[in-house]
């Protein structure tokens, strides 16, 4: 299996002197292509810090982080922006859609910073919105969409550049359980199509959809084990 993510002894500290806090304490982990990993932990456990570093939004205080065999700490801000644009899709708890523009424009957003243009751009965005069952809401503004619909727009946006990996930070945190279940089913579907997904959550119910669960506490990995994903259970039942 090829490693997409290879992290060695990551340490992240904030502040100086007495107010110094350790968010990540010697974390090492790998994620291979096609994996669906859930990082679970309570708030303050360091899971968000970990995801920010893995997602090339932040740099570790020490330790080595390789993204697709590239040492991230040696890359320039512009190269990191390029990696985030082409290789990474982000999904956030609060969706983070631009309120003043349509679903379609929101999905097109990452393409603006790549080199995709005009009709190609629209075609890709429409395809993805269709994939997440929003073909009838292309021109709706975020305020006209339900929470689940907004998160599906965000998922389409994360997929639009055909990234190597998707990072989801509490993707169901703002959704009711029924909608959460639909979003998780969509994640499972994407994973079965070969997408690599790293998801952060504090809910076991959500984490159970992943094939691998990493438990983190006080900046340390407590447990890293394989999981029999819920989806697999579904499919077994069906057959």
């Amino acid at each position, binding site marked *: 299996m090829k490693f997409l993510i290879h992290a060695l002894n990551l340490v992240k500290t904030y502040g100086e002197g007495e107010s110094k806090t350790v968010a990540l304490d010697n974390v090492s982990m790998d994620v291979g292509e096609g994996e669906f990993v859930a990082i679970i932990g309570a708030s303050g456990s360091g899971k968000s810090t970990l995801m920010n570093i893995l997602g090339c*939004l932040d740099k570790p205080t020490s330790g080595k982080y390789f993204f697709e065999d590239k040492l991230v700490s040696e890359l320039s801000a512009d190269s990191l*922006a390029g990696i985030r*644009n082409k290789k990474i899709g982000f999904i956030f708890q609060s969706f983070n859609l631009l309120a003043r523009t349509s679903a379609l424009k929101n999905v097109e*957003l*990452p393409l603006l910073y790549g080199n995709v243009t005009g009709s190609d751009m629209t075609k890709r965005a429409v395809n993805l919105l269709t994939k997440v069952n929003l073909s009838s809401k292309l021109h709706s503004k975020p305020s006209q969409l339900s929470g689940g619909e907004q998160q599906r727009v965000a998922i389409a946006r994360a997929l639009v550049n055909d990234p190597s990996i998707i990072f989801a930070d509490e993707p169901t945190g703002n959704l009711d359980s029924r909608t959460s279940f639909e979003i998780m089913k969509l994640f499972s579907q994407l994973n079965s199509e070969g997408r690599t997904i790293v998801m952060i959550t504090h809910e076991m119910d959500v984490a159970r959809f992943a094939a691998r669960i990493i438990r983190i506490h006080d900046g340390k990995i407590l447990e890293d084990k394989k999981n029999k994903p819920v989806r697999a259970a579904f499919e077994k039942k069906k057959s």
Partner: protein
Amino acid sequence: MNPVELLSVSIEAIKTNKLRSVLTALGVIIGVASIILLISISAGLQGFISSQFEKLGANSLFIIPGKLEGSFGGPPRTVNKLTFNIVDRLEREKSSAIVDVSAFIEIAVTARFKNESKVTTLDGVKESYFVYSDMKAEKGRVFNEKEDEVARRVAVLGTTLARDLYKADNPIDKTISISNKTFTVIGVLEPQGNIGGVDIDNLVLIPLNSARKLTGTDQVNSILVRTTSTDTIPVAKEHIDKILKRTLSEDDYTLLSQEQLLSSILQILGVLTAALGGIAAISLLVGGIGISNIMLVSVTERTREIGLRKAVGATNKAILSQFLTESVILSLGGGILGVIVGYLGSLILSNFLETTVPVWAVVLGLGFSTLVGVIFGTFPAIRASRLEPIEALRHE
């Protein structure tokens, strides 16, 4: 981001806060509008003055009493020492560069006909005045050399004056009383309008010698020397200066050429325009500060948006250009509106005075407003571009 996308993203952001955007641009609108308006008035005035001077003839020199200080220092305050003696001497000793020497007498008089009277200006002129000023009689005729020589009491009136005194009657061959002396009206001029600040249509023109008799003094108010061409003006000037120096001191007279006079006036006008333009530019500066202020507010308001854009791959440069484009659109948009407002203002003003909006003024206005957008947009844009993506995403 390609330029088209950049523009559409920026315009969208500006449209989200329409009222705020218009109010922000207002400072620039007012600044540019006042610059355009001021330039249009000044340019109109320059054109007007230049054309007036052309009417007076470019190849001529004026001798006026007293000394004008500096390039243009208000009316002279010394005693008038220009006399007919001097005029005669100039006439006698004129060089080949000089075509004609004519004196002017100008006094304020009360002109009367029956019960109508009017305070106006009387000019005593030589008959040649009508020829080189290109003035023709609309009714009757102008006086001739003979009438000047013998100092006949004949008068040529401006149209306004003729209408005021004689109403619907034909004034020709009627009498006119000037300073209690009776003259005969022999002609009424075609409408002339204002030439060199004098309303010709209100003048009474009589032969120079008649005016000399009327005033009873030997003084003349000014002497006009016409030269063969504009090129011979310096030679003629030197020649005249030499003759005048014999009897007069340097402080007794001033020799003015049209060009000199024109350039002096235009110079003053230029300084005035620059000063007023400077004041207008201050309002443009204030407008720029307004833009800077609102852009800073906008950056704070949109911190999350900036974080998101960075998370999906926007480089610092892309964010910088987005916010810079927004501020330039605000200020350039304000500039375009300002040009329109200024142009309309100058159209309205053109009912009262001469105005022209030169192309360079429009270019200047738009150029300045773009500059203001770039200068005052840079700081907020740099601030936006330097935001850390995770900090920005965490912003509430």
